[in-house]
């Protein structure tokens, strides 16, 4: 796995008091690297002034 990603993941696991199951990081390295790569695409779109809107369900009345 990419060294920076592995170090980041180990740091956040440690922060949460967790340890990866032995072999997991090797087993999941491909999906983890693809996911982190695709995360960057999320920020590639220009959303202008769009704010985070409470749009999950416009009809929601909060009942």
């Amino acid at each position, binding site marked *: 796995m990419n060294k920076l990603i592995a170090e980041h993941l180990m740091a956040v*696991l440690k922060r949460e008091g967790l340890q*990866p199951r032995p072999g997991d*990081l090797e087993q999941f390295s491909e999906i983890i690297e693809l*996911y982190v790569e695709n995360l960057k695409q999320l*920020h590639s779109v220009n959303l202008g002034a769009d704010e985070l809107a409470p749009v999950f369900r416009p*009809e929601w009345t909060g*009942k």
Partner: protein
Amino acid sequence: MAVAEKPLYYLSIHEAQQLIKDRQLSPVELTQAVLDRASAIDNKLHAYINLMADSAMSEARAAAAEIQAGHWRGAMHGIPIAVKDQLDVEGAPARIRQFTKGVGDATAVRKLRDAGAVIMGKLHMSSLPDAELPLPRNPWNTDHITGGSSTGSGAAVAGGLCLGSLGEDTAGSIRNPSAFCGLAGLKGTYGRVSRYGLAPLSWSLDHCGPMARVVEDLAHMLNTIAGYDPKDPTSSSTLVDDYTSALREDIKGIVVGVPRDYIDECAPRTDPVVLKLVGEAVEALKSLGARIEDVKVPTLRLATIANAVIYYNEFWAAHKNGAAEVLNTGAPQRRARIYLGLLTGSADYIQAQRIRSRCRAELAEVFGKVNCLALPNQAGPAPRVKDVGPIDTLFKHVVPEYHGPFNLTGLPTLSVPCGFSPNNLPIALQLVAKPFDEVTVLRAGYTYQQHMKWHERRPPI
């Protein structure tokens, strides 16, 4: 095939309810036929993880007595229904919960019970902690998977081990097994069906919904399970339609949008047979009176990854207190989701929510011009069991594909069979409508199904 020629376990809910209402069929006889079918072939399909035969027969006898006394409750009375493990059933809480307690009956299960349905038991789902459980097999070819995560629902409904099932869909988990197993499946609008009693994967993406052999049966089930639930804070108070009576209006004049650019984006990862059959299905809708228009939804290309980011981050939050146990004993998919959730930053999660907003706005504009969208439901026919790895589904979640965008936007989405691959595996069309317009996708799917009759084929098991 005429009703009289069908084995009882292959009756549709619609056919069975008419016979039960007319007292030509007893719920006891029907439930026994389904239990016998399960005894005969579930050792090959592995759909049930808890077949509740005794309580099912007891419920069937109670339904029979009530109907005999002149108290027919409605279409679901005496109908054998099975439940994906993820939903709690009284006495059989979700096994997928590794560290939280069940709630008795999930609201959708309770509503089915109140309508007189016979609860057959709990069905397998992907990622159960019980690693020794065999993977469900596809009734169309048992060398192939059913799709997931409603794995057991796909096998059970297609194989005649129940007449319908409650499933759950966070990134395609109703529509994927419905497509692979030749079923009709509906992910209703977010908020349409209560999530109370559903073991959470991702609070804002989880949808509970029906799976059955024909679209009409989805309408019967949705009539029963839809509606406001004070126990689910995201449940909607929007009025519930009568989904069955709306089915028979024709589709002349409805406008079907085809997101051609998005299909092209996904095409390199899609089997040509899927693109061909979905294209033919769109032509069939046109021949039935629909008008077809190409539409553009630019942000759809980011919707799948946005869905995954929200999914894994909410999964991490939902499982934080039991994460050590998940990492120690959980299935590979669940462990991987923990790692991916941990790698997701707050800016990523918020950006995914902004993309969700943008995507919904673009779709709202499109639905000002069209009544529904039509697009493929799957990248290909069901793969062979031996060709699928334990976390392959996660790869589907992070590149543009056909399911995630409609969990992200919470829109009602129907899966309906639209043909078969050369090796006789089902392929499906996906129809999507604006919020709370389940009627339109059910009507279009019903009309298409009545015209093409793909549902009359039976798996060779």
